[in-house]
C-alpha cells in the first residue's frame, strides 16, 4: 500500500515536469539503445548459437599456426579422425561458387562441397529426396547435388518431379538428389551442395589441400578437453611430417569456435570487446547524466527528506520513495529502447539483404532475441542502480541536523557540488576520448574511401580461374590456353581490350653495381605477371614500349616498372635499358627495363601512399602461371558482360576452374568501400550522439550546480556583485574541470596515438595527430563553455530579491 502511494506520487511528479521527464528519457533511451544495438549486432555476428538444431554445439575447427589462422589439410583430417575420442562428429568440406548452365546462359551460386555426415551434423532433413551418402563420394561415382528451396522454386517452379533430373553444374551433368528447406544455407551462404570426392583423402605427400572442417564434441566433454586432444594429435602428425618432408617445424594449436568467430579470423572477440567498450562508455555517460538529473530532483527534496526523516521515516522507506521516479523512467526507457533497437535491427537486416546479393552468411540475421532482451534487463537494472538507487541512498542518508538547522545549504550541498564537479570532469574526459577515437576512425575510413588507386576499373570485368594442371601439364600448353581464352574474349564486339594481371607477391630485387651487406637492405617491389596492354585497367605507359609477341621465353627477360621505381633508383636518368636482378622463388632473373608505367596502389600497402611501394610488371609469356586474374574492358552499356567470359570459357575448355565468379572488377572494392563508409557513418553518428549526450549532461550538471547556488548568487548580487563577476566565477570553476578532464584525455590520446602511429607504420604524419588533438580540444572547450555559460546567464537574470527567496 505504501509502495503504491510512492509510485502514485512519483508518477504525479513525472507528469508535473514533462520537460525534465522528456530530457531524462531521451538521454536514457539514447544510451541504452546504442549499447543494446551494439551488443545485439555483435552478438549475432560473432557469438550467437547458429539457428540449427543443437546449434550451440556446432563448432568450426581452426588451426593456429605460429599464432596465425590456418586450416586442416585433407591428410591431417584423415590421420586425425580415428585417433580422437572427444569428438562425436568431425568432417571436412569446401566452399566455392558453382555455375548452373541454363541453355546458352547461366547463373552462379554460392555452393559447398560436402561428404556423408554433413547434413546430419547440421541436423536438417531435405524437404525432398535424400542427402549425400558415402557412395556418392567414391571416386568415379555418378555426380549428385542438392539444391536449395529457392532454386527449386525459381528455376523449377517447385516441381515435385525434380528428384532424379539433371542439371549442368560447372559444365558437368549432375543428378539432383534432394532439395533443402528455405533459409538453409549451412555452412555459410550455400544454395547448392555438391560432393567432395574421396579423391582428396588419398595421401598426397605434403601437398594435401586445405579444407574447412567442422566438429561436435561428445556430450560430457568440454571444448577445452577436445581442443587439447586435437592439438596433441595434430602436433604428432606434424612432427612426423617435419621428419618426412624436412619442413620447418611450427607451433600448432587447434581451436574450436563458432562458425561466426572463425569467419572473423578470431579477431571477432577483439572487435567485439572494443566496440562493446565504446558502447558501454556511452551507457555510462547516459547513466551519469540520468543519475545527475535525478539527483538534482532529490536535492530539491532534501529538506523534505530531512523533515520526513525527522518524523521517523527509516532509510529504506526514504530510499524507496526517492527511487521510484528514477525506476519508472528507467523502466519506461528500457522498454522504449527495446522497441527502438528491434526496429533498428530489422532495418539493418533489410539493408544488409539488399546490399549483398547472396544475402551474406546465414547467421547475419538481426532482430530482437532472448540474449538481447536479457541484456536489456541487465542494462536497465544497472541504470537503475547507477542513476536512481545511489543518488536516493545518498540523499536518504544525509545528515538531518545540518539540513534542518538553517536555510543555507551546508555540508550536504558541498558534497553534492564536489560530486557534480567530478562528474563534469568525467564526462569531459569520456567525450574527449570518444571524439578522439571517433575522429581517428573517421579519418582512416575517409582516407580509405578516397585513396588514390592509380587504376581505372570502370567497365572492366574480372575473372579468376585456375587452369587444370593435370590436363595441361606443360607451361606451353597453359600459355596457349590462356592466349586462346584472350582471343576468344577479344573477338566479342563489345570487348575493348583484355589483360591478365596476376600479383606474384612482393619480391626482392638487386640493382647492378650495388653491394648488399645484410638481407634486410635488399629492396623489394610488387611483381605482377601480365599479358596484354596494361591500359585496359588504366595503367598507362609513360615512356618505352609495352610487352609484345617477340618477348618470349627464349629472348631476354623484360620488365615494365612503375614511375615511383624509376624515380627511386634512376632519379636523374632514363630507366629504359637499365637492368636489375629479380628473385622469383628459388630462381634469380636478370631483367631489362623496356618501359615505365604509371603508379598503382599495391595490395601489400593498402593504406600507404600510391608511390610508397613500387611495381614491376613481368611478361606473362616469359613467366607462365596456371592461376590467372583476367580483366577485360567492355563498351559502356554492355549488358550481361559476364556472359562474354563464360561463353569464351565454354568454347575453349569447360573444365577451367573459376575460383571466383565473373564480376565487375570494382565490385569487391566497392563492397569494401561501402562497408568502410558505413563504419565511418556509424562511428560518426555514435560520436555525435555521445557529444550531444555529454552536452546535455554538462549543461544539466552545470545548470544544477548553478541552481543550487541561486541563493548564493542572490546574496552576492545583494552585496554588489555584477553580472560579469558572477559569470566569470562560474566559468572559472567550469574551466578547471574542463582543463582536468581534457588534460587526462589528451594524455591517454597521446599514448594511444603513439601506439597507433607505430602500428600503422607512420601512416599519418605526426602533425595530423596534433591537429586532431587541438581541434577536438578547442571544439570541446567551446562547447563546454557554452554549456556552462547558458545556465549561468539564466541564473543571473533573476532579480536578487527573487533569488534570495529561492530555496
Amino acid at each position, binding site marked *: 500500500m505504501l509502495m503504491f502511494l510512492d509510485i502514485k506520487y512519483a508518477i504525479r511528479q513525472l507528469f508535473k515536469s514533462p520537460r525534465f521527464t522528456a530530457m531524462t528519457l531521451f538521454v536514457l533511451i539514447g544510451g541504452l539503445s546504442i549499447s543494446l544495438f551494439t551488443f545485439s549486432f555483435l552478438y549475432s555476428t560473432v557469438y550467437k548459437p547458429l539457428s540449427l538444431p543443437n546449434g550451440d554445439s556446432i563448432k568450426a575447427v581452426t588451426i593456429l599456426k605460429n599464432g596465425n589462422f590456418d586450416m586442416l589439410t585433407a591428410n591431417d583430417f584423415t590421420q586425425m579422425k580415428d585417433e580422437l575420442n572427444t569428438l562425436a562428429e568431425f568432417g571436412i568440406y569446401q566452399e566455392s561458387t558453382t555455375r548452373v548452365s541454363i541453355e546458352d546462359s547461366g547463373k552462379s551460386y554460392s555452393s559447398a562441397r560436402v561428404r556423408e555426415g554433413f547434413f546430419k551434423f547440421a541436423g536438417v532433413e531435405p524437404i525432398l529426396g535424400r542427402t549425400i551418402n558415402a557412395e556418392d563420394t567414391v571416386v568415379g561415382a555418378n555426380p549428385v547435388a542438392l539444391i536449395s528451396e529457392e532454386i527449386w522454386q525459381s528455376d523449377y517452379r517447385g516441381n515435385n518431379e525434380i528428384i532424379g533430373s539433371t542439371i549442368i553444374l560447372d559444365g558437368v551433368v549432375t543428378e539432383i538428389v534432394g532439395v533443402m528447406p528455405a533459409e538453409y544455407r549451412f555452412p555459410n551462404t550455400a544454395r547448392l551442395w555438391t560432393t567432395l570426392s574421396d579423391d582428396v583423402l588419398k595421401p598426397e605427400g605434403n601437398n594435401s589441400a586445405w579444407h574447412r572442417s567442422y566438429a561436435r564434441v561428445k556430450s560430457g566433454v568440454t571444448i577445452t578437453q577436445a581442443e587439447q586432444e586435437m592439438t596433441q594429435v595434430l602436433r604428432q602428425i606434424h612432427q612426423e611430417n617435419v621428419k618426412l618432408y624436412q619442413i620447418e617445424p611450427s607451433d600448432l594449436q587447434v581451436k574450436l569456435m563458432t562458425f561466426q568467430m572463425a569467419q572473423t579470423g578470431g579477431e571477432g572477440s577483439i572487435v567485439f570487446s572494443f566496440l562493446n567498450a565504446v558502447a558501454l562508455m556511452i551507457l555510462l555517460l547516459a547513466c551519469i547524466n540520468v543519475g545527475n538529473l535525478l539527483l538534482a530532483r532529490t536535492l530539491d527534496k532534501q529538506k523534505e527528506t530531512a523533515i520526513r526523516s525527522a518524523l521517523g521515516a527509516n532509510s529504506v522507506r526514504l530510499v524507496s520513495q526517492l527511487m521510484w521516479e528514477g525506476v519508472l523512467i528507467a523502466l519506461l526507457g528500457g522498454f522504449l529502447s527495446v522497441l527502438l533497437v528491434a526496429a533498428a535491427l530489422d532495418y539493418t537486416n533489410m539493408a544488409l539483404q539488399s546490399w549483398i546479393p547472396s544475402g551474406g552468411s546465414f547467421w547475419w540475421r538481426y532482430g530482437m532475441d532472448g540474449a538481447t532482451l536479457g541484456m536489456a534487463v541487465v542494462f536497465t537494472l544497472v541504470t537503475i542502480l547507477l542513476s536512481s538507487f545511489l543518488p536516493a541512498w545518498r540523499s536518504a542518508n544525509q545528515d538531518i541536523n*545540518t539540513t534542518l538547522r*538553517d*536555510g*543555507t*545549504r*551546508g*555540508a550536504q*550541498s*558541498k558534497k553534492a557540488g564536489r560530486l557534480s564537479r567530478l562528474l563534469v570532469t568525467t564526462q569531459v574526459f569520456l567525450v574527449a576520448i570518444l571524439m578522439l577515437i571517433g575522429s581517428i576512425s573517421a579519418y582512416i575510413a575517409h582516407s580509405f574511401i578516397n585513396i588514390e588507386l592509380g587504376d581505372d576499373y570502370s567497365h572492366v570485368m574480372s575473372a579468376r580461374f585456375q587452369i587444370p594442371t593435370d590436363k595441361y601439364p606443360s607451361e606451353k600448353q597453359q600459355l596457349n590456353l590462356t592466349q586462346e581464352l584472350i582471343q576468344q574474349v577479344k573477338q566479342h564486339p563489345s570487348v575493348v581490350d583484355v589483360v591478365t594481371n596476376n600479383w606474384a607477391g612482393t619480391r626482392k630485387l638487386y640493382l647492378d653495381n650495388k653491394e648488399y651487406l645484410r638481407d634486410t637492405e635488399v629492396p623489394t617491389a610488387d611483381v605482377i605477371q601480365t599479358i596484354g596492354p596494361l591500359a585496359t585497367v588504366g595503367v598507362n605507359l609513360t615512356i618505352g614500349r609495352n610487352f609484345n609477341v617477340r618477348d618470349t621465353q627464349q629472348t631476354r627477360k623484360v620488365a615494365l616498372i612503375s614511375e615511383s621505381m624509376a624515380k627511386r633508383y634512376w632519379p636523374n636518368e632514363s630507366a629504359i635499358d637499365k637492368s636489375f636482378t629479380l628473385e622469383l622463388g628459388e630462381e634469380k632473373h636478370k631483367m631489362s627495363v623496356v618501359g615505365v608505367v604509371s603508379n598503382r596502389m599495391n595490395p601489400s600497402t593498402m593504406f600507404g601512399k600510391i608511390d610508397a611501394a613500387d611495381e614491376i610488371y613481368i611478361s606473362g609469356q616469359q613467366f607462365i602461371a596456371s592461376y590467372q586474374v583476367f580483366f577485360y574492358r567492355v563498351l559502356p552499356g554492355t549488358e550481361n558482360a559476364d556472359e562474354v567470359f563464360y561463353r569464351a570459357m565454354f568454347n575453349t575448355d569447360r573444365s577451367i576452374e573459376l575460383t571466383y565468379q565473373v564480376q565487375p572488377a570494382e565490385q569487391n572494392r566497392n563492397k569494401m568501400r561501402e562497408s568502410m563508409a558505413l563504419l565511418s557513418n556509424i562511428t560518426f553518428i555514435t560520436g555525435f550522439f555521445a557529444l550531444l549526450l555529454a552536452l546535455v549532461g554538462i549543461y544539466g550538471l552545470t545548470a544544477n550546480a548553478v541552481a543550487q547556488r541561486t*541563493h*548564493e548568487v*542572490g*546574496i*552576492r*548580487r*545583494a*552585496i*554588489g*556583485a*555584477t*553580472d*560579469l*563577476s558572477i559569470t566569470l566565477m562560474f566559468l572559472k570553476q567550469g574551466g578547471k574541470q574542463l582543463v582536468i578532464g581534457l588534460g587526462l584525455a589528451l594524455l591517454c590520446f597521446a599514448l594511444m596515438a603513439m601506439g597507433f602511429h607505430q602500428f600503422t607504420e607512420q601512416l599519418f604524419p605526426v602533425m595530423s595527430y596534433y591537429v586532431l588533438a587541438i581541434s577536438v580540444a578547442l571544439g570541446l572547450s567551446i562547447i563546454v563553455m557554452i554549456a556552462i555559460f547558458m545556465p549561468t546567464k539564466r541564473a543571473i537574470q533573476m*532579480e*536578487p*530579491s*527573487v533569488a*534570495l527567496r529561492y530555496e
Partner: protein
Amino acid sequence: MSALITLENISKSFLTEDIETRALQQVSLTISQGEYLSLTGQSGCGKSTLLSLLGLLDSPTKGQYWLAGQDVSTLSRNERAAIRCKKIGFVFQSFNLISDLTVSENVMLPLTYQSGVTSSYIKDKVAEVLAKVEMSHRANHYPSQLSGGQQQRVAVARALVNTPDIILADEPTGNLDSKNAEAVMSLFDQLHQDGATICMVTHDPKSAKRAQRSLEMFDGQLVGDVKNTESNFTPKAVGV
C-alpha cells in the same frame, strides 16, 4: 535634515501565473541621514518588498526613488549593483552567509566587488568591523561552525564593511533567541549612535520602540509614521 532617501508614489506588483499581487501601493516616504527607522506590520503586508526596493534589489513597477539626490528608479542592473556595493548594507533574517567561505571571506565580499580597493585596506577594514561585532576570534571559522547569534553578527559586520549610507535589516532577530536578539539589537543601537542610517523590519514591538521613528504598513500601504519620544538613544550626528 537632509533627505537621504525619498520615495514618491512607489508601487510594486508581482505577476505569478496570471495573478497580480500588489505588494506595494503608492508608498511615499522620506528618510533622513542618521535616522533609525523600524518597519512593522503583519506578515505579507509588503515590508520585505519595500526593503528590497530601498536596497535596489529590485526595481519598482511605478514611482520615483531618489537616493542621496540621485534618481535610482530606472537604473540598469549593473548600475544598481554598483550602488548596492558602495552605499547599502544588508542584514537578513536567515543570515545569508555563504557556507563555502570563512567568516572573514564573507565579510570582505562587498569590498572585493568594488574597484580600486587595495588588499591591505580590505584586511584592515575586515579586522575593524569584526572587532566591532566582537567576532575577531572567529575570523577563520566557517558559518556552519557558528551559533545563530554569531552568524548574524558576522552578517552585520559584512553590512558595515563598505561604510554604507544606509543599513537595511529584514527581521534581523527573527531567527534568534532573546539573548542573542538583544545582543544584535544593542549592536544596532551602537551603530545608530555612531551615526549610521538604519531601516529595520521587525515583528517585535519592543524592538520597534528602540528606533527613533516607527513606520507601520498594512496591505502594501504605509499607515503609520510616529516619532518614538521614549527612545533611549539620541544620535550623535543627526542632520549634519
